[in-house]
């Protein structure tokens, strides 16, 4: 398991058009495990996309990864992911498929959503929920924003870890 302050696992995963993406090459990278069918992931989704937009001009990259078993949960199929991207749900955030679930296991991801903030060196600086309340739009993914502000300023986030909240990742049986 990757702890706060540890280097995170590297990976290369395809987006919905087959283009490969890796973390890094940015002053900070947000890796968010998410999916199509979980109400928690959906409730927080727009806040994650908004922070990607808001931090883009500071070079922050956001990578969304769907690790769920699509055989048991067809709503998380590659086709369903592609439809969301084509609908504009991700507004430029790459939506990656973790078909083997190896990346989710390497990160020890628990839920959708489960957010990881990496610094420029790939070191884990924040892990947990986007904010304190999926129901409250005003929260605006403040846990992640605070972590990003700290990382971009060269500081440690004041709250580096919160419990992830959401649907359990649907592992292959």
């Amino acid at each position, binding site marked *: 398991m990757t702890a706060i302050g540890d280097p995170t696992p590297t990976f290369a995963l395809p987006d919905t058009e087959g283009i490969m993406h890796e973390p890094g090459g940015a002053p900070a990278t947000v890796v968010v495990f998410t999916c199509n069918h*979980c*109400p928690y992931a959906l*409730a927080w989704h727009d806040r994650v996309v908004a922070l990607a937009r808001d931090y883009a001009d500071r070079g922050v990259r956001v990578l969304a990864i769907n690790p769920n078993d699509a055989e048991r949960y067809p709503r998380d199929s590659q086709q369903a992911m592609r439809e969301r991207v084509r609908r504009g749900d991700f507004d430029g955030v790459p939506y990656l498929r973790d078909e083997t679930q190896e990346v989710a296991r390497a990160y020890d991801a628990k839920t959708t959503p489960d957010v990881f903030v990496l610094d420029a060196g790939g070191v884990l600086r924040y892990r947990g929920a986007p904010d304190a309340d999926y129901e409250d739009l005003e929260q605006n993914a403040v846990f992640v924003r605070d972590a990003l502000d700290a990382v971009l300023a060269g500081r440690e986030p004041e709250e580096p870890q919160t419990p992830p909240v959401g649907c*359990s990742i649907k592992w292959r049986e």
Partner: protein
Amino acid sequence: MCMRVELLFWEDCPSHPRALAELRMAMTEEGLDPSTIAVREIQTQAEATRERFVGSPTIRIDGVDIQSPGEEPFGLTCRVYHRRDGRISPTPDPADVRDALNAARSATEPDRPTRPNRRIERS
């Protein structure tokens, strides 16, 4: 009057305590006894199929789902609800729960005056 209120849940989905609390509150507000709620855990896919369970939580009144399950497949998952303001939520809007309770009670008590429909159209 005998109204059967059930809450079906799957343990891996963390929304059921909130759904149960909101259901209890709605029943109290409607003058019903929340201790009569039948809470049942769905543990396996086979159970989900047998119980026509499309996700956690599912609330049924006299066997009728308070939100039509539509074409959702039966399975062990968290259920997606929409609040009246359009937000996606893991639990039903409490106003929808109250309206479902009120409608069910009106059906079993035809002489009872019904409440005005408080539904707000989603944007």
